[in-house]
């Protein structure tokens, strides 16, 4: 068996990112779309950690922590918007969320 190289981690991260893209593109429930975005952010973090290990430089991990902080902020604001929207229109379907569409 070949040793695990950063390319293995890159392929894993690319596959996880693709799963997130498929989720965002195919699902209509906005909560599941948000979860798919979290999957994509996780894929990015795996990438950063893999390069951090290969280059023996902890800056990648620092940036991964920033990504986690931004993901937390995004989740709080996004779920607040979802709740406010649900109170008004009683739906979570993004096809019905078109009141800002021109």
């Amino acid at each position, binding site marked *: 068996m070949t040793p695990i190289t950063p390319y293995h981690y890159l392929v894993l991260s690319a596959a996880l990112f*693709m799963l997130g893209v498929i989720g965002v593109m*195919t699902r209509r429930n906005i909560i599941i779309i948000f979860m798919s975005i979290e999957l994509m952010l996780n894929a990015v973090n795996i990438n950063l950690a893999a390069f951090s290990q290969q280059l*023996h430089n902890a800056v990648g991990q620092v940036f*991964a922590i920033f990504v986690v902080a931004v993901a937390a*902020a*995004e989740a709080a604001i996004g*779920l607040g918007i979802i709740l406010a929207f649900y109170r008004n229109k009683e739906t979570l379907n993004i096809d019905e969320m078109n009141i800002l569409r021109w």
Partner: protein
Amino acid sequence: MFESILFYTLAAFILGFGVLVVTARNTVHCVVFLVANFLCVAMIYVMLGAEFLAIIQVLVYAGGIVVLYLFVVMLVNLKRGPDAAPDRRRQSRVGFVLAAVMLAEISAILVYSAARPASAVAAAAATPLQTVGNTEVVGMLLYTDYLIPFEVASMLLLVAMIGAILLAKKEI
């Protein structure tokens, strides 16, 4: 050998739980699969020598963000699923095509960069990192070189907190 077994097992779990998150009908099941996915990713971080990041992943993602998701899923408790739209099939096809194009793009980048020699990478890999623990290294970087981004991130979290409270209030 052991590392390979661990990596492939974790990768299979991560991708399997990812597929379940994207495909599960019940939103609560999706959230549970998301927790499992995050925990497996945390184990990948431990394999990569990023212990602090792994702990942050478990505490912030699996402990904080997912609980927030669960609260919202329980609060909006839908009778009929939103995925029953009539032209769902067509949108799925477009989504899969877009994802396949993106996957082809990323693998092209991977193949292209794998074909080139990485001399700078090998030179940079000579310096040792783990003279002290991983957490100390990350903390030193956060509070010296990346102090201003750190403060900006804390300000972002404060603004997000106030914004979330305002958004979730009945009337402002």
